[in-house]
């Protein structure tokens, strides 16, 4: 159930320059599914949506991994253990558990990577074959959580725009290759819109492709209709709400211009 919570920060890490991962203690948030998010009060007028990068149900802890892009995330990243955050959550529809009998690939870019780690940690070990994680970033320093994906049993492929680590270029090449090798494979992706567009294009028509989207939000709970993206509503073109219809959508629900 969605709740308004005051949750203490218990640990803070800096997984990459300009990023912070805040662990908070909360039984309620630890009920979240991978792909769900929290909506956090900062100094701004609106809350800030941040996905769960870790969900530790047994210890009642979750983590929020965020990149500093503006005032709100700057404020959040500066918070230290001991501070209490005003959080609404867990919000949205998360990922569904992957089909354990089919190959599984997660494709993440930038701060789209963290929720995929939560997914891999939840379901990776239940699969018949180890999942693949294709992680993209501009520079090697911005590849988030690669070690954690390995530790969760993933085969990790990295793509950097500048070639400083792994494949030089976007995730397109590694993904195309993986799709070729796994015609029945399922893909979960989260990251910048151009990346998601690429994933949608490459997987066109395939079953089991889940994309997690971002959009500017007002209420976070489906009331204001701010957070929409173009998609199919009862079969016709219309608008879907990222906060409640998503943020995770099946690729075939979406319309990319």
């Amino acid at each position: 159930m969605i709740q308004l919570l005051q949750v203490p920060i218990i640990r803070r890490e800096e997984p990459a320059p300009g990023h912070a991962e805040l662990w908070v203690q909360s039984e309620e948030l630890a009920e979240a599914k991978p792909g769900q998010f929290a909506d956090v009060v900062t100094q701004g007028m609106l809350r800030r949506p941040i996905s769960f990068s870790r969900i530790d149900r047994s210890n009642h802890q979750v983590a929020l991994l965020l990149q500093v892009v503006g005032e709100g995330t700057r404020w959040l990243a500066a918070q230290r253990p001991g501070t209490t955050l005003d959080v609404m959550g867990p919000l949205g529809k998360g990922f569904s558990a992957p089909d354990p009998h089919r190959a599984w690939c997660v494709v993440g870019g930038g701060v789209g990577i963290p929720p995929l780690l939560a997914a891999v940690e939840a379901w990776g070990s239940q699969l018949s074959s180890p999942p693949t994680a294709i992680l993209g970033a501009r520079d090697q320093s911005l590849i988030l959580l690669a070690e954690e994906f390995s530790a969760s049993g993933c085969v990790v492929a990295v793509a950097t725009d500048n070639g400083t680590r792994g494949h030089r270029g976007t995730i397109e090449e590694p993904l195309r290759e993986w799709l070729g090798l796994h015609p029945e494979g399922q893909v979960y992706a989260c990251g910048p819109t151009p990346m998601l567009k690429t994933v949608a294009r490459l997987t066109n028509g395939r079953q089991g492709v889940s994309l997690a989207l971002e959009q500017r939000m007002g209420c976070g709970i489906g009331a204001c209709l701010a957070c929409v993206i173009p998609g199919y509503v009862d079969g016709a073109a219309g608008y879907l709400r990222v906060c409640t219809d998503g943020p995770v959508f099946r690729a075939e629900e979406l319309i990319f211009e």
Partner: protein
Amino acid sequence: MNLAVKLPRGLVLKNPVVAASGTFGFGPEYRDLVNIGRLGGVSVKGVSPDPWPGNPPPRVWETPGGLLNSIGLQNHGVEAFCTHDLPYLRETGTAVIVNIIGHTVDEYRRVAERISEEPGVSALEVNISCPNIKHGGISFGHDPDQAYLVTEAVRNATDLPVMVKLSPNVPNPGMIAQAVEGAGADMISAINTLVGLAVDKHRRRPALGGITGGLSGPAVKPVALRVVYEVAQQVKIPIIGMGGITTASDVVEFLMVGAQAVMVGTVTFQYPQRMEEIIEALPDELLSWGFATLDEAVGSALPHKKEGLPHESP
């Protein structure tokens, strides 16, 4: 302290704090977080006769002390509203105010008629800020004649209490208020949003998909107080004030310039329980400013405190 507000045609709010249209959805969305029955009322998001698709995203953008939105009045139409949303709302025990929209006078009439067939609706709120497609897209709310015609059509279509919501984007909102009072409106609500724009410097274009948007939040409070202050001296019907309210202290300001009740919008996004907190805090806040009752506060900052407003008992 008794916070009940008696309004025309038997409309009674259990307290003067109503959820503003467009910020509280169509009713059920906030059920997990808000004790809806505790609110003075809920004004639902604008309902049109047929579904409206709304504007392309992004639809919200933060501004200094404010929020711009260009939702574009997306809604699934009056039938879907009556089927999906109203049944929940009418069980909550709050006053259900249905905000209605249209592109023509006839569209307003149609929604008003349809809603009036349903039980459990407490009042209609006519959002006259919609573009009038038969008059070159000029907002009904910017022209006293068009505002009159819409109000008259709704008035003739329903026996429900009718409030008309004023646009602040005119030099003299009092003139519009007088027109709708003349056309039979029972109440005024004010203000709707100010028209604004934000720039997305990365994309080198207006930030909102709908280009311009409506400005709300604390930034607009002075404009809202001015409109209520002026209108309160120009009409006899009660006013529901809004615009930038975030605290019980803000509510007292709106009461003092002549509002009988208020609506609370933007702050709900950040603090969904703020309306309940305000209701909780209001009696002490009133007392702290020397008001022993809600009524004493109403109009107390007007040049001449208004004489007892006409209202029936429920």
